[in-house]
């Protein structure tokens, strides 16, 4: 009895120690799983000279259809390029933030890995192990247009996007009809009126997954895009300085909008994508009329409902115009998914990325439903959904596409902004506090 109790105490003391291990391991020991990267040669340019090359590929597609498709594309590429072997390793999205720093600290890093560009990429470039592929991509990067600039750091290309996203409103046509709304709103006043109509009809107007923070950030960032002139916006993000008045106005506009209580009950604790009670789940199941979300949202929704007819019930409209702002009324918020190369196999990796943005692969991405908007305009013909065609043409026509702030800014500041916006959204802090988070 006694020694048992002692052992419990010792176990507890060990638990204290283990906590420190967790804490310390987290802070950057490079004991990540062995990937076998670089085991075959490791000389750059191996692909060109026909020597065998093994590329380790970390991507975030742990679900179908993309998971299967990436596997097939890797096989296709191996078939067409003798000597190239691709080790495909799907890694859960949330794990990238921990796995990449650990991998880049050591020598066991992947050759190709998921990359969202912007400030996060710039942070990773500091490791010295992300490859500058400006020269390798020069012949073909022009094919995919301006979106590739989001994967530049200090003017050099450190990654290549394969899909494009834009944030807008996904709404239920049936619920809009029920509330007597005939046309999607184009101005903030119209949106306010529609919110009231939906409330009168007993429908939660707008779902938001504020618990996850980034969905709340979409709102504030769009208000900022409408309040701030394009030049001001670009300068502010480049200099990490939000002192311009327009950013305070963005918060005030958002506050005025939120004072109408447009969000679902308990939105402060709602997740964005998990379960039927999440914001995406609510719209998917007809519990809320609309949600400001990225182009991926219909695919998220379809996993959260039994409704096979969901797609036909969904419509899309861009963020409305806001009166009195200096921003372009059609500027859009968005981003994309891409990949970076690391230094060991930069040439072989860049060649593989060229394949990923080729019309051949891009069309497969679209037609399988894995990607909503391709980066290669030649693949746009593969889009069949009328709603997605509308989005594609909106993106083509937008005068200015702003990358999500948390991606565009250095990681620590981007996340601090997300936190400040999320706090502001749930009623803690002022418009000035959000601006103060950027320092």
């Amino acid at each position, binding site marked *: *009895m*006694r*020694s048992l*109790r*002692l052992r*419990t*105490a010792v176990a*507890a*003391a*060990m*638990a*204290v*120690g*283990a*906590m*420190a*291990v967790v*804490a*310390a*391991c*987290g*802070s*950057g*020991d490079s004991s990540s799983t062995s990937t076998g990267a670089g085991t075959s040669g490791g000389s750059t340019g191996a692909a060109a000279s026909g020597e065998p090359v093994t590329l380790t590929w970390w991507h975030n597609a742990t679900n179908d259809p993309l998971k299967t498709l990436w596997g097939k594309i890797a096989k296709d590429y191996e078939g067409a390029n003798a000597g190239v072997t691709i080790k495909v390793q799907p890694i859960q999205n949330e794990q990238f*933030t*921990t796995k990449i*720093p650990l991998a*880049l*600290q050591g020598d066991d890093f992947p050759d190709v890995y998921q990359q969202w560009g912007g400030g996060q990429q710039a*942070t*990773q*470039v*500091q*490791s*010295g192990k992300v490859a500058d592929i400006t020269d390798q991509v020069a012949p073909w990067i022009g094919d995919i247009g301006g979106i590739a600039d989001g994967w530049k750091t200090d003017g050099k290309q450190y990654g290549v996007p394969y899909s494009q996203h834009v944030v807008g409103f996904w709404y239920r046509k049936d619920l809009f009809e029920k509330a007597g709304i005939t046309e999607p709103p184009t101005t903030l006043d119209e949106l306010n009126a529609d919110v009231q109509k939906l409330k009168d009809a007993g429908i939660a107007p707008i779902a938001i997954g*504020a*618990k*996850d*923070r980034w969905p709340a950030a979409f709102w504030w960032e769009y208000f900022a895009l409408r309040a701030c002139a394009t030049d001001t916006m670009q300068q502010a993000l480049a200099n990490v300085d939000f002192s311009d008045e327009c950013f305070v106005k963005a918060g005030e506009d958002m506050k005025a909008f939120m004072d109408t209580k447009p969000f*679902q*009950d*308990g*939105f*402060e*604790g*709602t*997740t964005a994508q*998990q*379960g039927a*009670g999440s914001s995406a789940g609510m719209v998917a199941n007809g519990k809320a009329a609309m949600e400001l979300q990225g182009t991926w949202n219909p695919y998220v929704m379809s996993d959260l409902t039994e409704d096979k007819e969901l797609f036909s019930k969904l419509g899309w409209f861009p963020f409305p115009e806001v009166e009195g702002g200096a921003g372009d009324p059609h500027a859009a918020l968005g981003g994309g998914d891409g990949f970076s190369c690391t230094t060991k196999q930069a040439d072989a990796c860049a060649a593989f990325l060229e394949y990923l943005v080729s019309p051949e692969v891009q069309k497969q991405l679209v037609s399988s439903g894995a990607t909503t908007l391709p980066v290669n305009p030649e693949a746009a013909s593969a889009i069949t959904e009328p709603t997605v065609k509308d989005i594609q043409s909106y993106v083509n026509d937008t005068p200015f596409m702003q990358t999500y702030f948390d991606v565009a800014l250095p*990681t*620590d500041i981007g*996340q*601090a902004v997300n936190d400040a916006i*999320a*706090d502001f959204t*749930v*009623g*803690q*802090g002022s418009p000035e506090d959000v601006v103060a988070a950027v320092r």
Partner: protein
Amino acid sequence: MSADLASRPARRATVRRAARHRLLARRRLELALLLGPALLLFGAFVLAPIGIAAYYSLHEWSGFGPISDFVGFDNYRRAFEDDVFRGAISHNLIIAGLSLLIQLPLAIALALLLNRRLRGQGALRLIVFAPYVLSEAITAVLWLLLLQPDGAVDQTLQAVGLGGLVQPWLADRDIVLYTMFAVVTWKYIGFGIILLLAGLQGIPSELRDAAAIDGASPWQATRYVILPLLGPTIRIWIFLSIIGSLQLFDIVWIMTGGGPAGSSATMATYLIDRGFRRYQFGYGSAVAVILFLICFVFALLYQRYALRRDTRGALAQGVG
């Protein structure tokens, strides 16, 4: 013959000395074999990481590139100046305090109840202990779903006419911490009960009988005989409970991520958030070191002042 007789004790002594030497050598080998690997692992995976974390904590470091930006104790100062971190410390302390005030009496009461011979005792014990078997992640997801607005909890309350009690459990900044505490209690109460039941089993029934013969009421027998004898078990429970409260992470991280607006953040969720989500590995390490020191100092003091009496005998016997 006589020579033989004379030399016998001497030889016996030599033999005994040699045997003792062999025994000592064997003992040392045994110690090295049994303790060596454990010590090595302990050093490599407990002590060294603590040291490394302390080293990181003195630098500003994004997790990439060389660690060169030495900032001294700046990270520590920043942590204690941050409202969110101070809030997190107070949340940990509130959870620990509530555990002592609510969980402990509840666990003792239920343990005393379950210690009596009653019908379905086994089944009751199983039910009470079941949540402890679930992992924290499963518990968190389970309750996340149950506590959705208009979810199972709200509907149950409405069905029994307590609809007025329905709250935005995970969304209201003034309530969410207590929701967390309720879930933690649901999960860990069974562990406390099992621990206390084991303690109760160790108390001879003769003592209660003797008290009864001396005219003690059942309440008096419980209060003055049983509870004092349960002291060592209660003290261990308090130790485990406070350490657990200070390190609370999984349930909170999954259910709220520390939100809304930091109102349910704990030291551990804050540490992971700053370290891994914001890539502030130096700062995150500083928070980790603070968390470690708080737990460590508490553990030492508690061992020194509260547990010494309970473990002294065990230590002496254990080594002998």
